[in-house]
């Protein structure tokens, strides 16, 4: 089988300079520190999407681009799938909304990327958090269907009992732990 990529030559963006958290003169170490936009962004931005890319190559038999280096997994931030502005956090209401942008309009891996984001947040945020994950409006051909699937918890639960899918999600997320 010829392997290739659905988006063989993605535009790769520079990583943004990190804001340095302001050091306070007096730090109350017992104070509850609320979760903010930057924290959620940090959780998600390093997630890798090499695996979905490779899988989509195999599935769609797209010719391999000579420029693509499979040794170098691009992060969601570098591909601008996730930007800090697209994350809405309300710590008081325990609410996070992530709007992500698939790299191409017909990206068949949008649901897998969304599932990875959901799993990553499920494992990283306190369980009180409500998480909504959406495709940025106008960036995907089957936007409504992808959104509905990603936010149906019964479908997500069933998907996460599928060992192949869990392996794939774990592989996408593995380099982000530790």
């Amino acid at each position, binding site marked *: 089988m010829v392997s290739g990529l659905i988006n063989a030559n993605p535009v790769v963006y520079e990583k943004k300079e990190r804001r340095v958290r302001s050091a306070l003169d007096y730090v109350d170490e017992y104070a509850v520190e609320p979760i903010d936009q930057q924290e959620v962004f940090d959780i998600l931005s390093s997630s890798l999407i090499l695996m979905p890319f490779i899988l989509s190559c195999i599935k769609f038999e797209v010719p391999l681009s000579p420029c693509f280096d499979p040794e170098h997994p691009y992060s969601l931030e570098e591909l601008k799938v996730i930007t800090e502005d697209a994350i809405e956090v309300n710590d008081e209401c325990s609410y996070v909304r992530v709007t992500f942008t698939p790299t191409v309009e017909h990206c068949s891996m949008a649901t897998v990327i969304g599932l990875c984001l959901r799993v990553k947040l499920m494992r990283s945020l306190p*369980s*009180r958090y*409500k998480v909504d994950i959406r495709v940025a409006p106008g960036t995907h051909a089957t936007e409504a269907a992808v959104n*509905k699937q990603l936010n*149906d*918890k019964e*479908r997500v*639960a*069933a998907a996460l*009992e599928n060992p192949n899918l869990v392996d794939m999600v774990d592989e996408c997320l593995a380099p982000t732990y530790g």
Partner: protein
Amino acid sequence: MEFFDDGDYELREIQKLEGHTDRVWCLSWNPKTGINGVPPIIASCSGDKTIRIWEQSGPSQSWRCKAVLEETHARTVRSCAWSLCGKFLATGSFDATTAIWENVGGDYECVSTLEGHENEVKSVSWNECGNMLATCSRDKSVWIWEVLPGNEFECVTVLQGHTQDVKMVQWHPRMDIVFSCSYDNTIKVWWSEDAESENWECCQTIGESNNGHSSTVWALSFNVEGDKMVSCSDDLTLKIWEANTLRMESGDGYAPWSHICTLSGYHDRTIFSVHWSREGIIASGAADDAIRLFVESKDDSIDGPSYKMLLKKEKAHDMDVNSVQWNPVDHHLLASGSDDGTIKIWELAS
């Protein structure tokens, strides 16, 4: 029908039942318990692949787990339902099977396993007589099984029509009519005009174009008379439906269901569960961790009955409320199951 004053009602937590190690998806009260000196029993099923049987007993009248039914389902147990005789418990699982458990002197034995669905079974329901069982699945189909002697189950028909996974099946409380609701946003009504035949067909589809829901329909429930039905959805509304069931019971053919009102503006996240008590109180459980109770309002408009919220229990659980069930005997007792892995028993007090 009893009307409720605007007095102060309170949902008082009696006990929190802990034991499941994953989310609790569904609850079912055993209808033959809690009367004639038989202690009340409730079954719960969970993402931890087990079913637990809880009983209220002992001098303290506290709830305890009497049995854990495990090693039968290989995946999440999504749905559980007692037969009306209280002897059999049906459980549907993401492993694509439905198990039938029989209570033999306090022990629960798996007496039958129903196979046929292609993938996740999402809901199971017994008919009033207990001689038929309905199941539904992500494979978009609804199966009707006939109960034969010797714990044998035979598939009578496979109902195709939904275009997406079927979230719940429910029998009408008085007639052999099956209702199914789906990820395709519709409710379908299935009926066999000739009771002896197996010619089941879809006689009504309630969709957005006829005042139905605009997103996944998660559950539905009937009032005690069976002439009204309530449905709940991912579109954040509850809808009340009505049909002339008396005409239908007298053999005058199918009576269609029509929309009588929509309760919107109460929930701000998906409503997963709805249950109508024998006293006329509608309970709803949602992804906003709250339980709400609704009753028919006294100030009927000319347009027909209207409904109002009796109370809202915020933070009923730490996470999503997946199931709310009124006790069929003690009408003020409500049970709820949640993503937080616990079950709570509540008493409605005024």
